[in-house]
């Protein structure tokens, strides 16, 4: 069973966001499982603007390419170099060391609770 931590919020496109300052954003266990082995991550630069519901990057697995959708509107404060160098971290630890970007938030877009995400994904 994929892990869906209670303390995070989720998008329908399988990103998670926490409630820190700045917020941390990543992809869920559900997404990482479905993608298979991740081999490349394309992330924005520090200082780039992101917008809720819009694409902010791409994650590539052996078999597929998936867009990453931002749960929030704001400015990128930090990018996880470890994941760029070692994309397999996303499979190994999607909620921890496999985080993608940190964002200074202006507004939060539509997000789901863990329960709602669990229901959406049939878990």
């Amino acid at each position, binding site marked *: 069973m994929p892990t869906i931590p209670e303390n995070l919020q989720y998008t329908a496109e399988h990103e998670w966001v926490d409630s820190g300052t700045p917020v941390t954003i990543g992809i869920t266990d559900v997404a990482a499982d479905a993608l*298979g*082995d991740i*081999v490349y991550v394309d992330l924005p630069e520090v200082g780039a603007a992101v917008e809720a519901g819009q694409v902010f990057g791409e994650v590539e697995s*052996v*078999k597929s390419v998936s867009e990453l959708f931002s749960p929030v509107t704001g400015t990128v404060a930090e990018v996880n170099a470890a994941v760029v160098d070692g994309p397999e971290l996303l499979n190994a630890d999607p909620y921890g060391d496999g985080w993608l970007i940190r964002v200074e938030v202006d507004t939060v877009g539509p997000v789901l609770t863990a329960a709602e995400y669990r229901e959406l994904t049939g878990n």
Partner: protein
Amino acid sequence: MTDAAPHRTPLTAEHEALGATLTPFGGWLMPLRYAGELAEHRAVRTAAGIFDLSHMGEISVTGPDAAAFLDHALVGAISGIRLMGARYSMIVAEDGGVLDDLIVYHNAQGEYLVVANAANRDTVVSALTERASGFDVSVVDGTDRTALIGVQGPRALEVLEAVPGLSATAELSLGGTLRELRYYACTGMGFAGTAVLVARTGYTGEDGFELFVDAGAAARLWRAVLEAGEPFGLVPAGLSARDSLRLEAGMPLYGHELTRDVTPFDAGLGRVVRFDKVDADGEPLEFVGRAALARVAAELEKAELDEETPSRRILVGLAGEGRRPLRADYEVLAPDGDTTAVVGRVTSGGLSPTLGHPIALAFVEASSGAPGTPLHVDVRGRREPVRVVDLPFYTRPRPPSAARP
């Protein structure tokens, strides 16, 4: 293919029990990956992997005219395959376009086993049946009652030698042990009272074996090999690893490098076409597609003699510098032109797990196809630099042969 639900293989339940991600492929429900496709790929390169290949088509061709019939129906010199030998070949249409690539095993006196790709099984059975008219031969599709298990990797031999109950049967084989089985040869063995045809063939670029067994015995053999193989590092490997392995080995996949619109020559596999085949009277043999393929061969020969670059596209290997995978259908561009300077198209690609950089097979204009030529690939709007390289991308390490005294 119909839209009916995909068939389960005799081993689908095993994959489910192992937690595999299943996917429909060629009409069958197949394991895409188990623990992880990169780990499975690496296991095949360093130890061994076990594959369910039961989706492949197994077509028996038997009768007094079997060899002559296959000489006519396929492009290769099938009558030249020695007993218990095997050969890679192709079946083409009258216009020379490839219908499928195949391995043909001469598995008994007067008998051949033709192994076709799952998605082309019906096409191949129909074509063979049609072409059999006038030959004393019977063409039987045995796919649904046959399972095929692949065991591939440097430790594959040790794995199979450790399987209790897998033994050579004197009346089927020409003698010798599994260790002595030559590449592209096959032998009969027994397992739990069932016959197993074991061939030293594969699709990974490693040493390995393919085991043909009755569907009813498949699960028992699969489990026996898995258990015996565990101490050697054997893991179950799925279709994703199968694809990345064959790509590194520079092997074509029907539907990508080989299609109905491509001749064997276009894919750099003209060697499978045997114009020197002769019939019983010693006359040049009229095999299906001969005339069309002879024209292609003549065109290529003329271009070479005139030192002209042929205008057709050729299949080449591309190696990238970054880490972003190249993928099928991406366009290949001239490096200094604008995006309209398309010189080719990728047919298969990925990030090579063994080599650590992107690799691809692509059809490119011959003038852009010399090894070393710098090109670009359009990766979703970005130009990724690549270079044309010789195939294969990966060759397995071979021990130096013992010096003769």
